[in-house]
């Protein structure tokens, strides 16, 4: 029984070691937020953009520590390969083969110790691109490396 007692003592000792050493160094485990669901938010689901026009993408982002960068990706959805996360169902055009689809892929830094940030990015829709269904994905990363995304079905005509 002595042996069992000594083993139990060691177990308790180890157990306390484990519980005592839980660290106080806080880590950032929160993702940033991203939303177009406010009055000025743009584009909303099923928005039709005109070729040759300029638009300002407006998306609200926030983070508990600091935002670091954001990205805008516009690519065609002629093959219906994906859909948006806005809960709405836009009526998609017929499936077709792309010829000269618009490809927009840009990322931008968010400088300083910014916790609230509204993306206001002006983009020009070129004239000579394929019309049809497009997909607009906006994403944001905070200083820790957490990413949040939102994606919206749009049309270009």
């Amino acid at each position, binding site marked *: 029984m002595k*042996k069992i007692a000594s083993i139990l003592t060691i177990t308790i000792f180890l157990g306390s070691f484990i519980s005592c050493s839980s660290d106080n160094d806080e880590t950032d485990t929160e993702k940033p937020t991203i939303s177009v669901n406010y009055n000025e938010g743009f584009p909303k689901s099923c928005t039709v953009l005109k070729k040759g026009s300029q638009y300002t993408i407006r998306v609200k982002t926030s983070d508990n520590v600091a935002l670091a960068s954001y990205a805008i990706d516009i690519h065609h959805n002629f093959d219906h390969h994906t*859909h948006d996360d806005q809960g709405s169902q836009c009526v998609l055009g017929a499936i077709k083969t792309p010829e000269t689809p618009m490809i927009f892929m840009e990322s931008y830094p968010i400088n300083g110790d910014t916790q609230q940030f509204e993306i206001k990015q002006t983009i020009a829709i070129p004239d000579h691109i394929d019309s049809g269904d497009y997909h607009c994905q906006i994403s944001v990363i905070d200083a820790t490396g957490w990413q*949040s995304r939102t994606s919206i079905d749009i049309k270009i005509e």
Partner: protein
Amino acid sequence: MYRNITIPFLLLCSVLFCQETYNIKIKVIDKYSSLPVSEAHVTIGNQQAVTNSEGDFYFDNIKAQKHRLTITHVGYQTYTTEIIIPTSVADFIYLEPKESLLDEVVISGDNDKKLLQKKSLSTLQVEKEFLEENRENSLMQTLKKIPGVSAISIGSGQSKPVIRGLGFNRVVVVENGIKHEAQQWATDHGLEIDQYNVEQIEITKGAASLLYGSDAIAGVIAITPGKLPAKNTLTGEAHLTTRSNNDLIGASVGIKKRYTNWYYKARLSHQNYGDYRVPTDKIYYENYVFDLHKNYLRNTAGFNYDISSSIGYISDNFHTETTFSNVYAKNGFFANAHGLEVRTSRIDYDASNRDIDLPYHKVNHFKVINNSKITLPNHTLTIDAGYQNNHREEHSEAVPHGYMPTPESSQERLFVKNTYSLNVQDQTYAISGHKIKTGINLEYQNNTIGGWGFLIPEYNRFTAGLFLYDQYEIHKNLYVEGGLRYDYGIVNTKPYYEWFDSPVTDSNGVVTQQRLQRASDENLKFGSYSASLGISYLQKKTSYKLNIGKSFRIPLASELASDGVNYHMYRYEEGSINLKSENSYQIDGEINFSSKNLDILINPFVNYFDNYIYLNPIPEYYETLQRYKYTQSEVFRYGSELMITYKVNTNFSVSGALEYVKSKQLSGSKKNFTIPFSPPLSAIFSAKYNIKSQSFFRDTQLFADLRMTAKQNDIVPPERPTDGYSLLHLGAQTQIPLISEKHPLKIQCKLNNIFDNKVYDHTSFYRLIQVPEPGRNISISITQKF
């Protein structure tokens, strides 16, 4: 009494009037099990030998006089006797196992014969009975019940090993002495090994690099050849299994035939399963909602065909076996989110739960291995040689991405890897009290790639290692072991250019279309030492072990030179060509108490990495995908496993097992975070009840397992915290002498997750897309031996 005396030799000697000498052969047998005892150390006068796998030892040219014969073995009481050559020598010597079971401790709570060997590093021996009783869809899921061992799974049929929270290349899987080489770095596929063909596994937790090569930082899962059948016998078994959750059917047939010296073994296995069911009809991932048809996780069906055969020859001092095996598996990936990217498709996935549509992967793993053992006086020489070919393809619907137009085929990735291995090891007993092993390991890998998605480059890799290891018996219950190893490696990566044009803006603002270079020709050299020193102190009922070790790992080609979109994870992965070898320093301890009714085992460890390599998500983009870069940081880890087994009476036993590991990064941009895939605190409580044999039902057993897992809040991006859970499994097995009295039919029935709880496994690949673990499952299996 027959004595193995070489008569011609004797006659020759008599004629020459020299002093008579004799050759002797004696078999060493376990007193209780009557099984041969291999690796026993035998001394006659100043000559030494070791028993072979048949328990035999041989001495040549023993003088006709009185000798002292001593047989020692860690698991047995030392046997000493006086022999007089040639008159009083027994053919068989029976050894009495040590009362405290020094070599092997049966953890009898599960009655599953998990055996522990007393080396200074904690080693567990897993027997076939345990594997049969706990059989899940894949080998690693079967082994998950062992504290300290977990699995990174994708779907229901694929999983890879994790020991104490470390996985991928840090765990070495060895089959028949040769390191299994596939695409271990990837999260999205499993181990290409036929689980029905596994009879015995040795699991070492802790830095086992010394004997197994530099990658074994976290431990080793060594699949060892099964026991040899007796001379002139033919044995075999047929096995059928079915599982309700994924409508699995599995069959495996194996035979073993042995003549006197020659023998062969063969096995065929097949598993075919449908989509698995989860206890939910909706999956919420980010802002998406996926509706599941009848709770089926769309397109997770699969199958595998495995074949293996070996031929061997065993004689007094030579044993050789050559094994050919081929594993072919194909399985689908969840269709709504191919990894993290949300997909829609025109494929009618719900038409059948058994078809495998895009996206899917298939893999073929072919192996030829030769194991040879030569027993010489005072030496045992082991040579293991192997060739492996791993051919893996991933297919998905061709979708344009960024500047990449729609590809023409569905083949997204192709990896073909050839690995040639040679291990030579010598074990010598020439110095009394010492068991010295020296060896050399050579390995050459050649990896080629294909498909439209680029992630890792083609490469060649050559590694060579040299080691010296000694186990020294200071006192009959105090052992010291230690060793030193040096490894040298060369990694040569090949250049890669994309197959499509991307616009590139130069410093003058001029845009040109270019084929971007993703990998370059690099020749990288690595070399480092591993060392280990341990002590084991054995008492009648208690034993103590302490081991300190330094191990290292050469960075993988994926860690050095990845540069591309991982569509599974929808992220951009980048290697770092200037990564250093990963160094790990570890202290392992073990306290074992073992009495008639109670067994307690505690395995604490502390571990420090000065430059742990992991894929770190950084706050930057590449073409609007988040960049993940292979980074090195200091990591401190500690933890422990605890196992308690109590035999209430001869028919009823209970056991509890606990595992805990805590990891913390001490430097770098993720300072204070844990490392990826950290398993949560978890416990398994088991109970087992044996019912006395009735006329028709024999060895009936009822068993229950309760797995309780704590919440995992210790995460690193992009992981999410995972809630705790408990799952209850019940099972029963019995044997019915239906066809044969000698080999009754074994029937097993198991009920997993009986309450159909919706739980998430923190280390499952699908956890990232909020897919719960499989729901309730009934499995029935029958085994007939002959």
